[in-house]
């Protein structure tokens, strides 16, 4: 799924500026499933914005809300939102960056802004409440020969012939960085070296030949952006 993180409220208020009517649009796709941009969060955002405008700017904000099935679908956005959105409405998307841009394509004359920072494609560990980036969508999947562990994503250097000299006791020289809402690093935690994991798993599978294999440089044209399918 696409992992998103809400921007600080002050930043959102600043983006809204002097707009009189704001339409908050949630998404029942990734952002909704993981409780960042679903119905509850849209309602919470409504309360926060209304209160914030009252306290800071001593004015009432008109707020309309909607949650669409998937903001990354142009037709769904068009069908669900057309009846709701008026000419001068300001749109706040609570999906990922794809959602923001999809709505902006449908409503060409409107201003559409993000309530979230879009982070990565990741896996959720429910017990810890953590998300881990596992795929970068490079367009050239090699998981079949790296023991289902992606070096492009999980190696800090994305190297194909690892591990590098920065692998010590199976750990990477670059730790995970946990950031607060202002992107300041608040915590670092140890990260496994992807190539060490690949080595171990291939060894267990009796496939060290795959580890030993020289992998030539990647053809970067495959992941050149923007892509279209």
């Amino acid at each position, binding site marked *: 799924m696409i992992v998103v993180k809400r921007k600080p409220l002050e930043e959102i208020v600043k983006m809204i500026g002097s707009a009189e009517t704001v339409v908050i649009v949630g998404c029942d796709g990734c952002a909704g499933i993981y409780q960042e941009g679903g119905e509850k969060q849209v309602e919470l955002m409504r309360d926060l914005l209304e209160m914030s405008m009252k306290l800071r700017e001593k004015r009432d904000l008109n707020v309309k809300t909607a949650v669409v099935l998937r903001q990354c679908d142009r037709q769904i956005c068009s069908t669900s939102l057309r009846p709701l959105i008026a000419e001068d409405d300001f749109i706040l998307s609570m999906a990922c960056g794809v959602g923001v841009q999809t709505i902006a394509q449908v409503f060409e004359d409107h201003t559409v802004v993000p309530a979230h920072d879009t982070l990565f494609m990741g896996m959720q560990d429910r017990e810890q409440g953590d998300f881990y980036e596992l795929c970068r969508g490079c367009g050239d999947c090699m998981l079949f020969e790296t023991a289902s562990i992606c070096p492009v994503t999980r190696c*800090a*250097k*994305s*190297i*194909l*012939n*690892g*591990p*590098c*000299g*920065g*692998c*010590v*006791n199976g750990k990477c*020289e*670059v730790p995970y960085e946990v950031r607060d809402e202002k992107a300041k690093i608040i915590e670092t935690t140890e990260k496994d070296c992807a190539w*060490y994991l690949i*080595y171990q798993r291939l060894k267990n599978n009796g496939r*060290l030949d795959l*580890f*030993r*294999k*020289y*992998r*030539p*440089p990647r053809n*970067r044209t495959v992941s050149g952006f923007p892509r279209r399918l």
Partner: protein
Amino acid sequence: MGEAFSNLMKAIKAGEFVYTGELEPHKSADLTEVLAWAKMLKETGRIVAANVTDNPQSVGSVSSLVASYLIQRETGLETIYQLRASDRNRLALLSDLLGAAALGLRNVLALTGDHVKKGDTVEAMPVFDLDGTQLTDMIHRMVYEGRDLSGNEIHGPRPMFNIGAAGNPNAEPLEMEVLKLERKAEVGADFVQTQVVFDVDIALRYLDATEHIEVPILIGIFPPKSYGQAEFFDKYVPAVSVPKELLEHFKEFKQISDKEERKEKINEYNVEYFTEFIKRIKKKSTCKGVHIMAVGYPEVVSQIIESVEK
């Protein structure tokens, strides 16, 4: 083994046991200090070539290409031009390599390079278009096929480089390191220089485990100048451990109040310790030399070499 273009490679091919040194240019356009160092290494008459570091530990520094060229021109000491894939894509690497060939550099140490987050410019984009093994592959193709990685022809005479690769005898598990070295040899590494080793048994274990690869190996050593330095390697340099015996001796030297006497004792001990170390690794068939990283401690270099070679 490919052709020998450099004095370093010619010496290895001739069966000599070689000594290389290390020079570290800093974040400065003034190369006076590093040139003085290079001159000292040259004057030992025993250092066949010296590495010139490229943004070591990802600390932005003067171009290793320019520093390598100036060192060779001003002091006559052959250089091993270090080149990291972390800061340049394959186009920029090619440009620099062709420039290096035009300037007469003959050795390149192909490195992946530390992550930019380890250095002083953490906000930078880490490039890593290639890794060290792929960089070795690229240089090998330039030299032996006269082509770049996309197959485009390089005009005129082919660049003449001997390609060095990095190894780490301290790596665990060693099997992983051996397989990595097999890859580097497959794509054309001419020689290997290793991470610092203090424990001779670790060096011997590595030489035994990589013997079948038949690539000449230069074991990295770092004679410590003080107890603090030895302790630093033991405690803070990843995967490097310093034998207790060495640490204890340096602890004793620390107690000597007379500065000159202390220095003398440390020199004596380093010469004795590393002479024995080198004599033991020298017996291994693929050990073709030692890479002495005595940064800031030039006087010990010739003393150790003279003691081994006498």
